[in-house]
């Protein structure tokens, strides 16, 4: 039965999945098991995305199904789910830029693959990244940007992190519309990720996760 739910979510069968969840909740099953299935399904979705079998709409849809399941389960949840996390990642769109689609997808994939994600939002000044590094002790920072002026916003952010004495404590990755390895060099970041899975791969590498 557990496999059913995992497959239904992974295959994006929204209504069937929700029906199974309701049935299992009514049968008095531990809600945490359902959430665990949901999480496992999203890992499969992530794999399919990495294999170019799935695309961004599939990711969004699976995330939406998982959100609906979480909402059904929440009222029956006695304690919070304690998932072991692979590491912490701060992510945000750099100063002046309000684009968030790419950032949200990377956040989602990092979360699904087991990272603790601190998404600080769009149009974030360098200081916001610095504050969050200090607050969370995260060793990874992801800078998102879509527009060409973001080249400089990213460069300024990396420089500010350095000036705050935190540069050797964090690995910095960049991503978004116009980014490539030339811009990675220009900004002084450690790596550039072509898509969400590249971001996950970098985070895994930097945390030593398998």
């Amino acid at each position, binding site marked *: 039965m557990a496999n059913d739910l995992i497959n239904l979510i992974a295959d994006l069968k*929204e209504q069937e999945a929700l029906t199974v969840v309701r049935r299992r909740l009514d049968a008095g099953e531990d809600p945490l098991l359902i959430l665990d299935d949901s999480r496992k399904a999203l890992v499969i979705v992530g794999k399919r995305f990495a294999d170019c079998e799935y*695309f961004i*709409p599939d990711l969004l*849809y699976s995330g939406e199904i998982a959100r609906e399941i979480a909402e059904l389960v929440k009222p029956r949840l006695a304690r919070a789910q304690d998932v072991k996390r692979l590491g912490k990642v701060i992510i945000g769109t750099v100063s*002046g830029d*309000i684009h968030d*689609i790419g950032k949200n997808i990377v956040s989602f994939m990092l979360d699904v693959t087991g990272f603790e994600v601190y998404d600080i939002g769009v149009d974030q000044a360098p200081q916001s990244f610095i504050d969050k590094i200090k607050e969370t002790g995260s060793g990874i920072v992801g800078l998102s940007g879509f527009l*060409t002026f973001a*080249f400089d916003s990213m460069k300024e952010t990396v420089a500010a992190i350095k000036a705050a004495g935190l540069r050797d404590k964090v690995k910095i990755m960049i991503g978004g519309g116009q980014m490539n390895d*030339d811009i990675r060099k220009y900004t002084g970041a450690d790596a550039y990720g072509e898509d969400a899975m590249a971001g996950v791969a970098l985070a895994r590498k930097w945390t030593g996760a398998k």
Partner: protein
Amino acid sequence: MMETSVDKTSEKLDLWCSGTGIAFAGPQAEQEYGERARRLSDAIQLKTPDRVPIAPLVTFFPALYSGMTMQDVMYDPDKAYAAFKKVAVDFQWDTAMNHINTLSGNMLEALDYKQLRWPGHGVAANRTYQFVEGEYMKADEYDAFLDDPSGFMVRTYLPRICGALAPFQLLPPLTMTVPYYMGITMMMAGVAFTGTVSALESIIKAQAEFMKLAISVGTFNAELQGMGFPIMMGGASQAPFDTIGDSLRGTQGIMLDMYRQPAKLLKALDKLLPTAIQMGVSSSMTSLSPVVFIPLHKGQMGFMSPEQFKTFYWPTLHKLMLALIGEGLVPMPFFEADYTDRLDIIKDIPAGKAIYCFERTDIFKAKEVLGGRVCIKGNVPSSLMCTGTPQQVRQYCKKLIDIVGRGGGLIVDGDIGIPDEAKVENVRAMTDFVKESGVYR
């Protein structure tokens, strides 16, 4: 008697090249105009021109190049005029770009427009305007839209995207003006009690600001054409999928609709197609140039599967382009991001009738697939233009000309046009290199 088939595209392009109606500054300007327009026209029609044309799209580069802020040009059409003219004169490209895309900050303010943040209004003076995504049409409003698109636009959509037009949401259905003489009386009652008059006053203010920009752009077109620069951008339109995805449902909304309510989405796409065609035709009506710009936002690799592209995105875009071509117009879609895996789909277009602008698509692969079928525009990378050296820019342009330019069918541009923050020496290097090394022998 020889049978002649009328090629509407050739006719329109020839008319553009002839410069009919332009008051030229002198014989040299007239000659240069003819050479430039012919160069572009040949490239479009896949003939070998005298050299590779260079016809960049610019948005706020002219402002920064002229030492102004983006806010300056958005709030003063005269400044925008001066900045765009300076770029045309200094770089001597094969086209002049007018300043319609700098928009009018005052017009947007008069309407309290919510879908953009722009320089001095939500973003800093030198940050380009950016779209504010949202579900301006909710997931359960497809029926309302499909039943009465115009009514939905006036009474639901406009109030959501323009604060000043919020009173329209209280208007009775516009069809209520019909019944007998009561109808018009009822409508006035609606107008009287809903604050509609204040909305109309905002429209009057906004249109006055729009007219300042429009007159400035019209004068610019006349002057710059008279100086020998063809205006290439004729009109504009949009792929129906992007209209729904950008303006109505938002990216996430439309992506979920592909699964949850595909039939309604497909119906709405079909419903928007005539509007998209009409927009392309009417926006280019006053222009000599038959080129219709179609910026694409949501059909790229990753943003949907090839299957979804074939089902939801391409059919109405394809029909839009074919309809424009049927009118003798030249559709110029800008394929934002990467379409490398969709080249075989998008090559289905009559030969020599369109221009495809590419950003991150493998443009060399594109030449292999599309060569002999469609003129390619692009794609000096923004990263090079903003952070690279003139030497790197020249190297890229050389490859572009050698491979994509072979035999014709290439117009050089940056990958997103000229980025606002491009280094001037790189723009200069790109321009000079194309003029010196792009000559066909």
